[in-house]
């Protein structure tokens, strides 16, 4: 008899709104406390101290519009946040400051989360949905210069981009972009040429979320259906469906592979978090705590593997923190 699934290690309450975005910043040295950023529907970004399990700061910069994405740039002092007010803000949090340093107006009205990739010291690329419905724009940060605009061929009918993932094979190679579209396809873009390298129809419904493992050249995507699709990228830069996995209930809002590529977690519309082994997509656990749709899952970046955490934010205003499969 398998052991019953664990309970959450602790639960963070008090956002008083549905949680849409989570990001850990736990990699710092000893005096720094581990931090979790959460973005919620009321436009606030909460900075949680994971030692005291209390909110340290609440950042209000999106005019009470929902925050759908938070990400740090080099440590916890620089924070990027994307809100439904069509702005992406860069926060300066060093030495207790809480000011917006800079912001980008996206002109996009969709729900597509941005994707950030560090290409060199002090140089980032950020992909975001652009003004035209089916376009993706890639900016260089912090200069905010546009690198390219990725526009599907006329007549491709991909619909809006739903999720983005910027990645590169190694530090000095070409950055590439994977994007999931409304029509259920996943597209691999070459940024320098602005061209489609490969397109894969892996879902019947819009792709809600995807994540990619550049070491194994294998990715996973979820949609509003009951199916998780695992696909791989071969040497000819072609995407192929590897396997599919059937879920009990339909709807996946977020997928994250743990940085060590051992396990992955999905956030389900059925209020449950599912944990799988990444190698063969072996189902490992179904974490049933939330009472409403889970919107996002995130793994922490602790240096010590045994401290690693999994966080999930839900529509029921709570953030559940789990310690699962930390020994491997």
């Amino acid at each position: 008899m398998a052991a019953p699934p664990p309970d959450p290690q602790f639960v963070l309450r008090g956002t008083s709104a549905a949680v849409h975005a989570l990001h850990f910043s736990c990699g710092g040295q000893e005096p720094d406390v581990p931090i979790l950023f959460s973005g919620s529907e009321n436009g606030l970004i909460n900075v949680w101290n994971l030692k005291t399990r209390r909110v340290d700061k609440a950042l209000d910069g999106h005019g009470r519009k929902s925050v759908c994405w938070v990400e740090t740039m080099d440590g916890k002092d620089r924070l990027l946040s994307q809100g439904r007010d069509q702005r992406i803000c860069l926060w300066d949090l060093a030495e207790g400051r809480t000011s917006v340093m800079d912001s980008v107006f996206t002109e996009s009205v969709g729900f597509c989360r941005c994707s950030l990739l560090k290409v060199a010291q002090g140089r980032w690329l950020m992909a975001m949905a652009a003004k035209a419905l089916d376009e993706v724009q890639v900016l260089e940060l912090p200069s905010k210069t546009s690198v390219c605009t990725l526009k599907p061929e006329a007549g491709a009918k991909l619909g809006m981009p739903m999720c983005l993932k910027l990645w590169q094979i190694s530090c000095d190679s070409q950055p590439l972009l994977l994007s999931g579209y409304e029509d259920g396809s996943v597209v691999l873009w070459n940024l320098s040429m602005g061209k489609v390298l490969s397109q894969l129809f892996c879902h019947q419904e819009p792709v809600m979320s995807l994540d990619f493992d550049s070491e194994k050249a294998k990715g996973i995507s979820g949609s509003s259906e009951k199916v998780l699709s695992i696909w791989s990228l071969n040497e000819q830069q072609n995407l192929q469906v590897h396997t599919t996995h059937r879920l009990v209930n339909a709807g996946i809002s977020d997928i994250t592979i743990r940085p060590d590529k051992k396990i992955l977690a999905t956030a389900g519309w059925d209020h449950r978090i599912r944990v799988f082994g990444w190698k063969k997509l072996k189902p490992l656990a179904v974490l049933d705590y939330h009472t409403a749709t889970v919107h996002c899952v995130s793994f922490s970046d602790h240096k010590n593997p045994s401290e690693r955490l999994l966080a999930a934010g839900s529509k029921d205003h709570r953030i559940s923190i789990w310690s699962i499969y930390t020994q491997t």
Partner: protein
Amino acid sequence: MWEVCQQQARGGPAELQDALLAGVVALPDRVSNSLRGRNPAVFFPQNYFPLLGAAIVEVLHEISASLRGGSDCSISFVSQVLGKVCVHGRQKEILSVLVPRLADLTKSDCIWQRICWRLVECVPERWMEAVVLGFVQRAPGADVLSRLLGNLVVKNKQAQFVVTQKFLLLQYGYTTAVLQNLLGYLSLDSLRRALLIKVLQELLETWSSSSAVKHSPAEQQEYISKAILICLSHLKEPEIESCRQELLTSMMEGVKCHLDSSLPQIRRLGMIVAESISSKINTDGPVLKFQYEEDDEARELKSLLVQAPSICAVPSLPDDNRNEKADAALPLTSESNGKSHTAATHVVSDEESDAELDSDDDLTPYDMSEDKELKKTKAPVYIRDCIEVLTGSEDTDKWEATVKALESLVRKNPAATREVSVELAKILLHLEEKTCIEGFAELRQRAQVAVLTVDPIPVAQYLTSQFYSLNYSLRQRMDILDVLVLAARELSFPKVHGKIKHVEKPCVQLLPGSDSSNDWRKIVDERIKSKTRRFAKGPSQVQVASGPNEFNSVAGHFFFPLLQNFDRPLSTFDLLGEDHFVLGRLVHTLAVLMYLAVNTVAVTAMGKALMEFVWALRFHTDSYVRQGLLSCISSVLLSVPAEHLLNNMTEELLETQSWLGDVVEKDPDGDCRRDQKIRNRCTVGQKFAFGIINNTHIIHPAARLKTTTTPWVINMKIWSLLLGNFFEE
């Protein structure tokens, strides 16, 4: 020796020829008769006739040489020898030598072809069938057959009859390869093509005749269908054009009577053939498309249709040539074996590598049994709520949840169910699928079974009365039968998990000491076991769960009402007429109920009634019904105790036995006959069983085990007893 005989015979008088002929053909028999078992190996038929074949080839060689030399000569004696050998049943031996040689020789030489044609033509009419059959079976392909036989079928009436009528319409035991040879042969010459069309028309006539569909065995129908498909594959566009109208009419009729049949196999044959015909006659228009299970048989039939005439010459090697070709084929097969082997190892290594990858995947999963489908609405908790939802609710989610939850609810609350059981049964019987639920029919059926088992008597009365009432669909009537059978089966099984545990639990509570005493006994047993050496163990005795047979008190309510009204047709339901499919189901249901009623009190009365019922229907035209009747009889024999059978039902038994004898002889349906053989033995065996019981006063096992063990166990014992007796005899 043979050459001399034949040289002489060519000019000799008729009597001498006849004597020689008889002598040549019967030589092995005569030699063995006179030598009385010390027969030299050469004169064994399996050695002698190939030798004779080789001799014939030699003679033919000489004839061909003399023909080339310009002199005329007659071949009729050789033909007669061939004919007589064939009619004596030695086609296999002689033709296995002749056919390959002749096929070789006729390949390019037209004189040899002429000789060969003459050889077959000169066979006297009375032996023609055997010779032609031999050639058709042995020829490796239609083109070879065509070279060997020439236009025999056009010239010779007997051969024509044999080929077009006898092989196709009157007999049905030949393999597909033979059919392909035969029809391919017909299609290879323009003169013969007219025959091919004629054959097709005759085949279609048989195929579309409803009496043929009803009365001929399934094997023959399959044979005819195959022949039709092969014919169609050989027909060309203009030929089809010329007989399109006829094809269409016979297709329409054929589909009708095939779909009418109660045997699924026949229905499917009809569908496949009709689809093929329609695709042939409407190359551009819409074609028929049926839904049927696509299995090997269907694929095989369809492959007959697409086969081009030239291809069918290649694969049809008759059995005996296979030995010769086996050597040639061996490297091929071994190669393919090797390939598959390497492929297999490859796969294995793939798996291994996967396993290796997986081996460090030491993440142990947590329990995921709670991961169930999320339901929007909660299922009702009370039976009365269910009734409300099922009858009036517009909320489809709620309705769905109710349908899914109903079975477990009924089983959990038997008392509450009994209050409303008949009403619930009525609702379930009329329940239609409102939304698309997976496995709706099964859910409904399980709920019905649950209701029936919880409150058997009133619900069974209700259901059986509804079976013969107005305004039900055939589907609903068959549902009733299925539910009765499933519930009867459930009731007649001893409850292992249900009642018995309930009985035991209070015991444990009352006597807490018993628990520890059990432990004590266990420990002692263990100790004894560990210190005892056993050299042989008897068969371990499995304790069969026992409990009262709940079916005992209610069997009659399930059974008798179904027998009452079968011969009274209603305006919408006529069991003895059109609705013979339901009748077949009814008969099978009765057989199962009878079988399950073993060891019940009512079983003798049930058996008697069932025998009468069977007697009334024994000449039914539908073979599905007849099969059901046979299983009725066998379950009567199995269920009714032997004494009762002997005392109360002797007359019925004797009548049945004579009928069974008839069935074994005459029934056109192969399944019926086969079944019958076993059952006939069973009756004979049963009689012997009576004898034994009467003589030695052994208690019948069924009586000894009365109502406590499972019916299955008892039946196994009866079977072994009966069959054992029979075979001893």
